[in-house]
């Protein structure tokens, strides 16, 4: 029999934990915890104007030249996945971080942290792929470093790349430049990279293989900048997905962002996996897509330029910047209702049922 009513009214509630006592995996997710780590630990220690921009790359002046610098570490598992591997990814990721500032990528450094016992054949394949990706992006690998750690202290292979590029004087893009009325352009379907990795890691089989979108975006960026310099901001929505990127822009520019769900391209297979696992493609990583905030007067020509490039064929206008609800991203759903698109605290977790 059921218990009497009063037993149901017992209150219960756990004590909250401060997120600051230990580093958690979520601190590397690109979500709110990552942002807190930067804000509370790194920024106070290293504070300077170039860093304080908090864009994907720093821009510094040296003898009258504008130089973009960025660095990124790659810890992907598995090392090889459909559409790429850790080597090509290490080039694309850093090239893209330079490109998002509008810089022409020139030189890369590569550092390998190798776990003792890694097969030499695997290392060779990664190095060859890295070289191919660099050559195809037109960047040179000009310096490097190697460390080997004891078995169990690494996960096969970690790679860090640092990149340097040159910027033209009139290219001024930053996450705090978005203004009400600006249009939001996305270069193609979202979620491909994250789902390709997940499917490979978990051994999920589908009718067709889902490939990572990993690619160097600097030529797409150049074709957009050829149309106009009135692009306020560009970002590649990697970790944390499109949602985290747009939330960052909304917060940095103190504007609201309104998306239209039906205009955001998601591949059928990616949608299928997301449905199956209870994931939202808005939070899944991309490695070959960019989102641009563009003055409405030039949004049409910029969109046309993107669609004229191989990596932007499916480009769409997915929403607009608004003066209402600053700092918040909202979305008009397929049913015409409105909801918030939040930034996640840590990684997205598959739901139980």
């Amino acid at each position, binding site marked *: *029999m*059921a*218990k*009497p*009513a009063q*037993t*149901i*009214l*017992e*209150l*219960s*509630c*756990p*004590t*909250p*934990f*401060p*997120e600051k*006592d*230990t*580093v*958690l*995996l*979520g601190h590397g997710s690109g979500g*709110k*915890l990552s942002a807190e780590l930067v804000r509370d630990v790194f920024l106070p220690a290293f504070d300077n104007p170039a860093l304080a921009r908090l864009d994907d790359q720093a821009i510094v002046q040296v003898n009258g030249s504008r130089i973009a610098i960025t660095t990124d570490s790659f810890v992907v598992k598995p090392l090889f996945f459909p559409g790429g591997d850790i080597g090509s990814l290490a080039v694309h990721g850093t090239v893209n971080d330079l490109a998002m500032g509008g810089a022409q990528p020139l030189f890369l450094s590569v550092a390998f942290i190798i776990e003792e016992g890694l097969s030499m054949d695997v290392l060779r394949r990664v190095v060859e792929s890295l070289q191919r990706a660099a050559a195809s992006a037109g960047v040179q690998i000009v310096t490097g470093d190697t460390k080997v750690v004891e078995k169990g202290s690494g996960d096969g292979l970690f790679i860090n790349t640092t990149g340097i590029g040159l910027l033209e004087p009139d290219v001024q893009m930053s996450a705090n430049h978005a203004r009400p009325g600006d249009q939001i352009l996305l270069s193609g379907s979202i979620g491909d990279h994250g789902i390709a990795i997940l499917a490979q890691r*978990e051994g999920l089989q589908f009718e067709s293989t889902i490939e990572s979108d990993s690619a160097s975006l600097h030529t797409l960026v150049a074709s957009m900048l050829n149309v106009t310099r009135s692009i306020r901001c560009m970002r590649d929505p990697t970790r944390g997905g499109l949602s985290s990127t747009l939330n960052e822009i909304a917060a940095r520019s103190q504007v609201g962002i309104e998306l239209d769900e039906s205009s955001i391209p998601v591949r*059928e297979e990616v*949608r*299928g996996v997301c*449905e199956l*696992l*209870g994931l939202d493609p808005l939070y899944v990583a991309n490695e070959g897509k960019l989102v641009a905030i563009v003055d409405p007067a030039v949004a049409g020509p910029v969109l046309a330029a993107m669609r004229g490039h191989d990596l932007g064929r499916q480009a769409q206008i997915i929403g607009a910047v608004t003066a*209402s*609800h600053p700092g*918040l991203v*909202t979305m008009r*759903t*397929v*049913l*015409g*209702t*409105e*909801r*918030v698109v*939040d930034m*996640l*605290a*840590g990684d997205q*977790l*598959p*739901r*139980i*049922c």
Partner: protein
Amino acid sequence: MKYIDEYRDARIARGLAKAIANCARHNWVLMEICGGQTHTIMRYGLDELLPRQIELVHGPGCPVCVTPLETIDRAIALALRPEVILVSYGDMLRVPGSDLDLFRAKARGADVRIVYSPTEAVTIARANPDRKVVFLAIGFETTAPANAMAAWQARREGLTNFSMLVSHVLVPPAMRALLTSTQNRVQGLIAPGHVCTVMGYQEYEALVRDFALPVVVGGFEPVDLLEAILMLVKQLEQHEARLENQYVRSVSCQGNLPAQRIMQEVFEIADQKWRGIGPIARSGLRLRPEFAAYDANQVFDLELIVADEPAECISAQVLQGLKKPTDCPVFAMRCTPENPLGAPMVSAEGACAAYYHYRRHTRAS
């Protein structure tokens, strides 16, 4: 996507919403039981499409949210033992225990692994004969057959390093407890489609009869839920109380009989504590004595981990549909998914988290 897009069609959804508006002459309070349904309602803003007369309240159907604190504490205590590999569904890792959650236990060196299916836990046990693998087996009737299968498979293979920490809850006893409460406001129920896919819907006949309340088994897509709401409103306006099945493409009257058989072979009904609600008699499942060798509570000396929770958040009222998450003074202020003060804020399917993720602007503006 085939078989899904038609259930998210704006034209059909708006047509159903209009039909509900035309039909509803009185005010009605309806409860969807399952967290997955709450998630859909918030994600698609279905309540925005409904007329004022219809109020949706959100039931206790988030398995992560209602798993008792003691179970989380026990899982963490086990995970911190060096010989143990603790295997869990992903969304359990962020649920706060008394001092830690499983993510923090992992950061302290615990071997915690996420699986998508319980049989993967058996595979891990097979591959690690020198370790003790404990599967955190939680959920409603939906996950019970697969969890039962894991224990059954382990026994068939004679694995001696596999056990389960079981915290299984059952929907009908919880609904009965809720409807018995003197504070109950619920006038119509949307029964959980996934649970009924396994169990069928005969058990809900008794609720309809004893409480003279219409129950409609509902699916999880926007069109499913709107259709279920329309079916409830039609009954209520005509003073009827019947059991109906909206989710016919998945649910049959008798349910999935082989799944029920494996559940009955492995589990038996037991009293169960619900986080945020309290103890409810015969509302859970535990391993049968024949499976004692796979019961982590018996395999390990867990002493007596009993956890008392401070009464601070209003989760009990939220999980009974007495209050909305936004009625809570600390909602989105001190209580957020990063710093949950109560269970419904923890899992994406919890009512408070669903409001936080999808509906914060209604409070901000």
